[in-house]
């Protein structure tokens, strides 16, 4: 009973944070809404049986990505800049498109039948199982991801660096 209440609390955090991020025109409010939403998703991961991914969500998303976005905000726009007005026609169009998409996929979710299986045993959810799979069966994916991250860091430095004069 209490567990259900906490799950619905996290779900409410996810939705309210997302709405805050999507609706506000102040960029700092949007970042804080993103943080709230990510925190709710981390809590839901906890109840979906994976404390490890909840911790990773907190560390990488809230601790890394959100902070990086704040950093970019401070480097690019001052917080005092008045945000531009929304274009009303475009907002309505965006809402209509989103609602149509959402209703379509919702019909799909309702029509689909998913097979229910008994939950896996406790030891299959452990961090050790994830680590073992990462270093054996998913080793190639793991290494590729590390190379992608390295290339992204190098590319980010290259793009953000001030342009120098072309060598004559």
């Amino acid at each position, binding site marked *: 009973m209490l567990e259900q209440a906490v799950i619905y609390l996290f779900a409410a955090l996810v939705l309210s944070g*997302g709405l805050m991020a999507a609706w506000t025109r102040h960029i700092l409010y949007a970042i804080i809404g993103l943080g709230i939403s990510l925190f709710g998703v981390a809590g839901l991961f906890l109840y979906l049986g994976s404390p490890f991914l909840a911790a990773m969500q907190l560390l990488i998303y809230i601790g890394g*990505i959100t902070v990086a976005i704040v950093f970019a905000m401070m480097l690019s*726009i001052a917080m005092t800049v008045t945000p531009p007005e929304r274009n009303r026609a475009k907002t309505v169009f965006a809402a209509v498109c989103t609602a149509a998409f959402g209703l379509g996929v919702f019909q799909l979710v309702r029509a689909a039948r*998913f097979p229910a299986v008994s939950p896996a045993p406790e030891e299959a959810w452990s961090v050790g199982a994830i680590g073992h799979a990462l270093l054996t069966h998913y080793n190639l994916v793991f290494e590729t991801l590390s190379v992608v991250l390295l290339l992204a860091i190098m590319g980010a430095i290259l793009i953000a660096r001030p342009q120098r004069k072309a060598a004559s």
Partner: protein
Amino acid sequence: MTLEGYLTLSLMLFCIGVFAVLSQRNLIAVLIGVELMMNAASLNVMAFNRFSVTDPTTGQIFVLIIIGLAAAEVAIFLSIIVNLYRTRRTIDAEQLTELQG
């Protein structure tokens, strides 16, 4: 909460992200919308992983890779934003129209 409940929740989060991408004018807010959509996807994968898969390792690794790729994507996106602001003095999506056909 059942599997359908989680799927509906992640669908709503995805729609919020789509709305943010379509309606926001600030490029950083557009990036935040993309992040919301990615989180909806990983929530979806985790829900399937919990309720209708026998081996739960695969879904967790999938979500871990989504998180890693999101970090890489954010790094590139933010460096592009910083560079745009330096050269154009704006990150308003309505004013960056050089590539408009």
